[in-house]
């Protein structure tokens, strides 16, 4: 007992027991934490096909994908021109419209404000795009954040044109 510096056989046993105990507790807690993550039935709803043949120029539809609204907007030539004329330096989250809308006529994006998740209103706001009523974020005709508290542009989900009239999201 006089020499405190030198670890004893017993100290080793204590440390090893605590370490094994901690691993055991961690292993027991993990399932209790992970059960809250999205489950298999939720993940299984990964893709949606949408028929867009009835959408006229200048109009948009909103569909539900994985519990979130997706805006599918058929943009007018003016809206496309407006989105493409913006200089990247003016953007809070710089992204080219060309990268956001592969087919310039169709803008497909999550209709979720990147601030706190509200659904922005279309054809509103200072930039002719979307306006979020919750905390006042303004988006342009490419869904890019221009003014307000939101940090990012509205997200573009993974999607593809299955044929001319059908978009597959996810």
């Amino acid at each position: 007992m006089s020499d405190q510096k030198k670890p004893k056989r017993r100290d080793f046993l204590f440390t090893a027991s605590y370490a094994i105990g901690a691993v055991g507790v961690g292993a027991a807690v993990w399932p209790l934490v992970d059960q809250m993550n999205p489950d298999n039935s939720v993940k299984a709803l990964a893709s949606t096909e949408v028929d867009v043949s009835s959408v006229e120029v200048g109009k948009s539809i909103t569909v539900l994908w994985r519990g979130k609204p997706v805006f599918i907007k058929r943009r007018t030539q003016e809206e496309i021109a407006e989105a493409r004329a913006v200089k990247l330096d003016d953007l809070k989250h710089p992204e080219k419209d060309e990268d956001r809308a592969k087919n310039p006529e169709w803008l497909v994006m999550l209709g979720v404000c990147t601030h706190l998740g509200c659904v922005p209103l279309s054809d509103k706001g200072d930039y002719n795009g979307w306006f979020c009523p919750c905390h006042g974020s303004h988006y342009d005709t490419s869904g890019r954040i221009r003014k307000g508290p939101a940090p990012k542009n509205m997200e573009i989900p993974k999607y593809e044109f299955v044929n001319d009239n059908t978009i597959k999201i996810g």
Partner: protein
Amino acid sequence: MSDHNYVPSSKLGKWFNDRLPLLSLSSHLREYPTPKNLNYWWTFGGILTFCLMAQIITGIVLAMHYVAHADLAFDSVEHIMRDVNYGWLIRYFHANGSSMFFLAVYIHIFRSLYYGSHKSPREVIWIIGMIIYFLMMMTAFMGYVLPWGQMSFWAATVITNLFSAVPFIGESITNWLWGGFAVGNPTLTRFYSLHYLFPFLILGLVILHIWALHIPGNNNPIGIDVKKPSKDTVPFHPYIVIKDLFALLIFLILFAFFVFYAPNLLGHPDNYIEANPLVTPTHIVPEWYLLPFYAILRSVPDKLLGVIAMFASIFVLVILPWLDTSKIRSAVFRPMYRQFYWILVVDVLLLGYMGAMPAEGTYLLIARVATSYYFIHFLIILPILGHKEKTIPLPLSITEPVLEDSTNKELNN
């Protein structure tokens, strides 16, 4: 205290008390010496205990009829309102009960701030109280989500999205909270489970809160220690019990007014529209008791900093006993603090009003000034004031100021 020498009168009582001293505890609670100068602002502890019990009892009953499922929840609440015997009464009592609970807790907290009840040696009581307050906010928020109306859904969306401000892992946290990629059925069922659990955590903390209170004893309006228990205190029962009950009755009149005459006044009509993930209501506001924090959140233009400011506004309250450097507890003897106290009250009310208004133009400007002042009060004014302020001399004892003014001094002696 007096319970150490308590001996039950009956033989059976003594037998039981030797094995589990519940009778000693009961004796302690009855005899507990309470400063005799407590005013009606001290009755809110009892009122809050009533509120908690009322919420638990009405909540357990509502849980017998409510269905926690995204497709059924809204209808089951309407079923409670229309079909269940007295369901309307029980639900209105529970829903308005949360507002009354917060009203009482705000008065209770501001009473502490005025009379310095958070100061040494009562810091632990205060911190437990702040944890209770935080759990109350979480419980109320999750309860508000359960009817699955438009306000429920979008309140859940906005509040859980606060965590998406966390750098790098924000999205993982929100998906974990939701159990999906948006607020949905898994979110509803877990909120239901936790909404049932948290009141019992609060109950446990309330017991610790009262236990911690019974170590130093109550603070009092002049904020000085009890010098002579026989002169300065009265037993809790019957003096304080009767006073608390009288205050509770007055409080219940207000409670009953809301339940019977204005049951939806404090709610929001949009919550009678079933949740729709495709449409956000044009003007979403939280319940009135969360508005000051909502105003702080919105007054910061950056998302992450806004969330940090909101949590910081609660955290400064937790560390308040060390921010307020004045040794004098009661504002009665702190003329400068008294002014700043009322400015803070106005500031918080103003923040609450701004939280209900759209975040733009003049409203936003006022909210920003009020948010700044809130932090200036706690982080700059209070620490400096404790050193600079010229305080009024304290009386020698709790009894002294009473006896000085008394005309029949000899009677009291």
